[in-house]
């Protein structure tokens, strides 16, 4: 009886397999933050973002750029550093239940990566098309670029890196080496950021007609394909989770 009571108490005190609150809170962080960013673009894109030589451009857009770059470097250092520093050094000796719990946390990170990739590669990238079809650019750091290249891309890089570090440091599944497609899914989209160098060089070297399908942009396309590495992550994860649940689902 006493043992049963203890066991029930332990169950009640045990952390849930999936922390739904964390997942909702994390999702809200992305949604609310990007809603604010979109509001900022709407207001200060037109009122202060048309002429890069104007003082208000410096105030509202260049300062935004400087602040975001510092914040991104800090966030990446602290987040990745924390996940690495608190890594599990005995990852192969965790219980199956703990492993299942960590898979849920890992998928919570992947949900965040889903949000981050969506806003970066889809929402703010296509938005760039309509802004530059409307406003003739006179700088590499247009309001659209300040958000797309230097905010939304680093955010998905930081998020993808965090998911990767979590998987590598906490899950036995990833202890046998470096999962090739996980690397592709995280490093490929990361390479879109350095590719901005090619993009800006081309746009400033050739005064191009604002065509989105111009060959200059194909570097983005190539690295965008890397998102399909998610299929490899899916297969690795499904195999690992099936192994944990197989006996009970039979």
């Amino acid at each position: 009886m006493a043992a049963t009571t203890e066991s029930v108490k332990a169950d009640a005190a045990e952390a849930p397999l999936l922390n739904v609150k964390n997942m909702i809170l994390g999702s809200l962080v992305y949604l609310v933050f990007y809603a604010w960013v979109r509001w900022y673009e709407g207001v200060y894109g037109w009122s202060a973002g048309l002429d890069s030589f104007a003082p208000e451009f410096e105030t509202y857009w260049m300062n935004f750029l400087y602040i975001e770059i510092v914040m991104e470097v800090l966030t990446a250092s602290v987040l990745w550093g924390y996940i690495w520093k608190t890594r599990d050094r005995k990852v192969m000796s965790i219980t199956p239940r703990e492993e299942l719990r960590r898979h849920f946390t890992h998928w919570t990170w992947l949900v965040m990566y889903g949000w981050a990739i969506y806003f970066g590669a889809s929402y703010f990238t296509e938005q760039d098309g309509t802004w530059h079809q409307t406003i003739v650019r006179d700088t590499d750091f247009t309001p659209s670029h300040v958000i797309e290249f230097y905010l939304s891309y680093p955010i998905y890089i930081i998020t993808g890196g965090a998911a990767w570090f979590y998987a590598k440091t906490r899950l036995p599944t990833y202890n046998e080496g470096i999962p090739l497609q996980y690397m592709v899914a995280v490093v490929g989209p990361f390479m879109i950021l350095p590719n901005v160098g090619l993009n800006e060089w081309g746009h400033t070297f050739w005064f191009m007609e604002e065509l989105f399908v111009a060959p200059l942009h194909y570097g983005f396309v190539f690295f965008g394909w890397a998102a399909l590495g998610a299929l490899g992550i899916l297969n690795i994860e499904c195999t690992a989770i099936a192994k944990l649940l197989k006996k009970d689902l039979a």
Partner: protein
Amino acid sequence: MSASQSAVRSRAEAVKVSRTFDYMIVFVLFFIILGGYHIHYMLTGGDWDFWTDWKDRRLWVTVAPIVAITFPAAVQSQLWWKYKLPFGAVLAVLGLLFGEWVNRYFNFWGWTYFPVNFVFPSQLVPGAILLDVILLLSNSMTLTAVAGGLAFGLIFYPGNWPVIAPLHVPVEYNGMVMTLADLQGYHYVRTGTPEYIRMVEKGTLRTFGKDVAPVSAFFSGFVSILIYFLWHFFGKWFGSMAFVKAV
């Protein structure tokens, strides 16, 4: 870790856990595939997709299906061949359309004030349904590539016809005959707008009159077959579970 220990307390909990993972997986796949597919599509066929004055009877019909069949083929190569889930193409296309519609409304209209009936995206769902149904019924990659790829190209223009037809009626403006879509473009000048009406129906295609779109669709279907094959194998590579020792 003991092999005899169970990760769950009961069969009911195992089922619940499995379902929860299903939802999370679908969400993550939807948005990550959406991101990759959208950046690919907007930068290889985007201009034809952004504006109605680019949605002509020749190049739009040719280019859009060829660049759009890529991700559906890759996703099918995993969802069907590993999990027997017959909705890989539709999942990819719905993701793309979600990303496009949100953008066209909140950004093309909401930020730069182009009317939505000038910037709506192309319709790709009929072709995606055909790809999934052919794969489901045939269980054959080759048949899906040949019959599905061809169908994907052929169905594109008819699938878009109900929306685009009213914008392809001829109008006379300043002494020139153009389409209503051309007139939209004339009034909504963009930085990429040339100083002339784009004349895309060149050569004998133009003398064939009404056959421009079918000929273009047929050519598009042919190339879509080849692209399907290629991207099916890309998808298989991306789905690999290989681990490497060093990078």
